[in-house]
């Protein structure tokens, strides 16, 4: 136990604080794959069911209830709303005002008419978006990124894929930092990042070019470093720690998968309205 705690601390290094917590509640301590399955199946089910009531029920049962149990509801609402806001605004504006099948006029601004049918459609899409966004947000609020990868590696995905996944998590912030430095440097040399569309378009190459070229230049060193450490050796790797799993969770995962497939089949066959 002590060893796994130490390893968890190492794995959490460099991540935001709210992700570095080690499983305070039972929901956090579920196997990462179970949580990923719950997130995916509830998102797919929200789309497959359609309408307003289905996604709303899913949102309450599969997102809000577990989030309350895990004590992350505040974070969930904040992050989920923030992530879904641009698309939610688009959905609302586009469908409220530009819904050609709409007949019932709510109000009008100049030549565009807001219709009740458009509003209804927009609210349905919004419910679906909130269900998808909530399910995925709940997953990563309660799971450390490396845990899912370690768990999948234990289940037999290639250690190379696992390396790519974990390295991506670390490469993203490093690249943001590099991009910031390069943007500052180019602006010091007179690059215009504020002007007209054409000027901004021309700003892409002097920023993107050096970021990518600089990163690719590092490939050589890293390749040699990995090969020197036996990265290409064949055979299975021994994991020092992996998230716990229980037979009951495996059953739940399979049940959810079968359930969602059945739901899609039923919907495609047109049995449900």
């Amino acid at each position, binding site marked *: 136990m002590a060893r796994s705690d130490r390893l968890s601390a190492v794995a959490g290094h460099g991540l935001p604080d709210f992700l570095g917590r080690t499983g305070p509640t039972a929901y956090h301590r579920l196997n990462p794959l179970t949580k990923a399955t719950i997130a995916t199946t509830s998102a797919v089910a929200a789309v497959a069911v359609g309408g307003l009531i289905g996604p709303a029920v899913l949102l309450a049962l599969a997102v809000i209830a577990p989030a309350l149990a895990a004590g992350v509801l505040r974070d969930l609402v904040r992050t989920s709303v923030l992530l879904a806001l641009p698309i939610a605004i688009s959905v609302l504006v586009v*469908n409220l005002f530009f819904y050609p099948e709409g007949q019932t006029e709510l109000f009008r601004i100049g030549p565009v008419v807001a219709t009740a049918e458009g509003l209804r459609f927009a609210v349905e899409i919004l419910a679906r978006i909130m269900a998808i966004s909530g399910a995925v947000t709940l997953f990563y609020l309660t799971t450390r990124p490396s845990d899912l990868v370690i768990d999948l590696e234990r289940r037999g995905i290639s250690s190379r894929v696992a390396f790519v996944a974990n390295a991506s998590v670390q490469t993203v912030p490093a690249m943001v930092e590099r991009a910031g430095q390069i943007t500052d440097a180019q602006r010091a040399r007179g690059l215009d990042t504020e002007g007209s569309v054409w000027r901004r378009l021309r700003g*892409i190459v002097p920023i993107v070019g050096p970021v990518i070229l600089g990163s690719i230049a590092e490939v050589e060193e890293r*390749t040699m470093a990995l090969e020197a450490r036996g990265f290409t050796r064949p055979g299975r790797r021994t994991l020092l720690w992996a998230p716990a799993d229980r037979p009951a969770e495996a059953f739940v995962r399979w049940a959810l998968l079968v359930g969602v497939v059945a739901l899609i089949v039923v919907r495609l066959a047109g049995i449900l309205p």
Partner: protein
Amino acid sequence: MVVRWIAAVVAFVATLVIGIVAAGGSFTDYEAALAAFPWITAAAVIVSFAVYAAIEFAQTGAVTSVARQFGTRTIVLMPIAIAVNVVLGQTVAAALKIPIYLDSIGTIIVGALAGPIAGALTGLLSNLLWTYVLPPPFHSDFAAPFAITAVVIGLFAGVFGRAGLLRPRPGSRIPQLALAAVIALVVVGGLAAWTYGEFYSESFSLDAFTFFNPTPDVPPDPVLVVIGWLIAGLLAAAVIGFLLLLIVRRDAGVAYVVVAGAITGVVAAMLSAPIAANLFGGVTGAGTDFLVAFFRQQGSDVLTASFQQGLISDPIDKITTFLLVFIIVAALPARMKARFPQGERLVEVGEEVAPDDDGWRGATA
């Protein structure tokens, strides 16, 4: 080797046709199948890959050509490519406020340098990690459903790279330039004509030339005719600008890169549109949504409006991306490129590749 490629392409097309027929369409009338296009394409990718691998295994007893794409060098490049996709997809495009996505540069780089399967895997992992693994602020709840688009972009980039379309050809002679320009204009023009006829207008006539006329019986709104001509004028200006660029740079490669970008863009739009339509009613929260609103206002249904928006944005985005990748890869030293599995295809004809004795052709490098 040729047999494998032909078999893979045949399997791909056959699965597409079977899928379209199964979804209720036919060769000439495939509109019924448009909504199912992402599923059909996913099946076609898997089937053609299985056929390719099976034939290679039958011929040689191993799948070396696939394994070769995943050397340590590729594995190290992939996280960088994924980071490029995510960082650019989420920030630069937003910060520069341009209605394109720029979220497939890394995928296309890996496809071009390492091969189609490596490119496809990079695309798949990019979108999956973006949703399931990467923490905020570089996280998107809505990337995973579009994974099939990213897979096909990586696959196409790999095939185009292998075919040598992304090879720089500086100092091309006039006949070569002319040939490249004609090929590019024919392909891009053909794609434009097909998409226009299929998605933007029922009939083609010069006095009713408009992008926004779903009902040809009613005479179109004159404003829309003007806008239609305006867009046509912009396209013509883009073509002339492209030809000038070709002559100034004297690099026939630019034309082939545009061909690659245009084809990838149209396919990407065909894949993303049904996904966006089914999940979000056609919008994606990006700068392209005003186009959806515009097409909806003209009476298009959700799916059609998604196609109409995507078939404008995606080819522009993918041509820009392919040109960026072309410039970036051309700036890499030849010996660095040549160490990647498919890098020789990106080295200029006659460019000096420094002799190398560290065994990069081996399975491990």
